[in-house]
């Protein structure tokens, strides 16, 4: 996927989000939460797109670091601990419809951790999952609500998402 394709995909997802959540004409209970690292810039872009499309206030956007909720921490205590970075959710998630955003959906374990983390912040009305790429090979019963692109891969391959905000360019590539 090149930069243009990524941009059009995110615009399409923004429209889908509004279609699905704009039942009484307002979306004031929507909020975006991006999973570190690359879910964060995607969430911010979606916030901007949602605003461009429907106007009004910016959708509240937060950042989630799931490291402390990982299910593989401490299981194989070799090597140093993964770096923990800040979680910043500067709004109450109670009774909000949370759009959880990540770049790639693979085993589903990151999303499991993110759901546990989110619940520690309150009780949202609903959580919907947005991913730029779904590469399959799920190990947990988790499914995305909005998918940018389905990429059939083999487990030996790796899917790399590059974003301007983090990597200086927009591109999705399959390696290996």
């Amino acid at each position: 996927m090149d930069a243009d394709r990524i941009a059009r995909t995110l615009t399409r997802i923004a429209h889908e989000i509004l279609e699905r959540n704009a039942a009484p004409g307002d979306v004031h209970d929507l909020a975006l939460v991006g999973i570190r690292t690359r879910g964060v810039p995607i969430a911010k872009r979606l916030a901007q797109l949602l605003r461009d499309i429907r106007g009004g206030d910016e959708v509240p956007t937060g950042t989630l670091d799931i490291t402390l909720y990982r299910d593989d921490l401490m299981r194989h205590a070799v090597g140093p601990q993964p770096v923990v970075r800040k979680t910043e959710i500067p709004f109450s998630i109670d009774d909000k419809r949370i759009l959880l955003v990540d770049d790639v959906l693979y085993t589903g374990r990151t999303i499991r951790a993110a759901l546990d983390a989110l619940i520690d912040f309150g009780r949202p009305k609903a959580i919907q999952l947005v991913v730029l790429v779904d590469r399959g090979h799920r190990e947990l019963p988790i499914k995305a609500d909005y998918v940018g692109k389905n990429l059939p891969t083999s487990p030996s391959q790796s899917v790399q998402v590059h974003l301007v905000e983090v990597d200086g360019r927009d591109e999705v590539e399959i390696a290996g």
Partner: protein
Amino acid sequence: MKKDLLGIAELSSEEIYLILDTAEAMREIGQRPIKKVPTLRGKTVVNLFFEPSTRTRTSFEIAEKRLSADTLSIAVATSSVLKGETLVDTAMNIEAMSPDMIVVRHAASGACHLLSRICRSRIINAGDGMHEHPTQALLDAFTIREHKKRIDGLKVAIVGDLLHSRVLRSNVLLLTKLGAEVWVSGPRTLVPAGMERFGVRVSTSVEEAVADADVIMMLRIQQERMQGAFIPSLREYFTVFGMTAERVARAKPDAIIMHPGPMNRGVEIASEVADGPYSVILEQVANGVAVRMAVLYLLAGGQEGG
């Protein structure tokens, strides 16, 4: 990270920054409605305190609970130590119940190093005699960095009972490692011999030490460790070395005042300074929890090189 946290002496500046950065993330957990993450689920942490402590022990316990560790605290007043058990025997008995980490405070310098050699559990030094108190220095650095955005190049004046202070030693090691200019000041009888070798400036004039300082760190007069006559009287000490508003006025206008606690008001610090707007003493206590969570988390992983 190495197996244990014995002192600042064993840490590199990269490791210190890693702990401080991790503590930034940990602090947010204390602001949530549910102040708990599942990270250390199933890990057992024993707090073994051979010396009295309120702040440090409470802080470690809260940190452990916020990370979901199973924790228990042993205070010497209720333990077999009173029946004549040695430190090594006590530790080996606790070790036999396979905890993952032991947080130790002991009146003898080097007690944690001794336990580190004989225990498989990870040892965290919560203060050993007059040697080190690494988590205190780390939370002090965290507090300084929060206010000053850096540590490198700051002038830090440490005033008080230098001789008996493990907080001093850990802070000097840490602050000089990170590039601060450290001044220490206290009565001649309470300045350890050879202080200059740590790369600090020594002055018996508080006025000189605090001049243009960015940070003033007070140390408690530790009467319980003083068996001789180190100072004529507490009142005289306050007159010559006590931190008063006039002395604080010699430091930079935005200087912060720190104290590791417990404070002796009217001995090393005037109440108007301790409760003044430039005092960050209670912030230090709050930050202690986040810093200790960071240390617990980082030590719970694998060791360097697998």
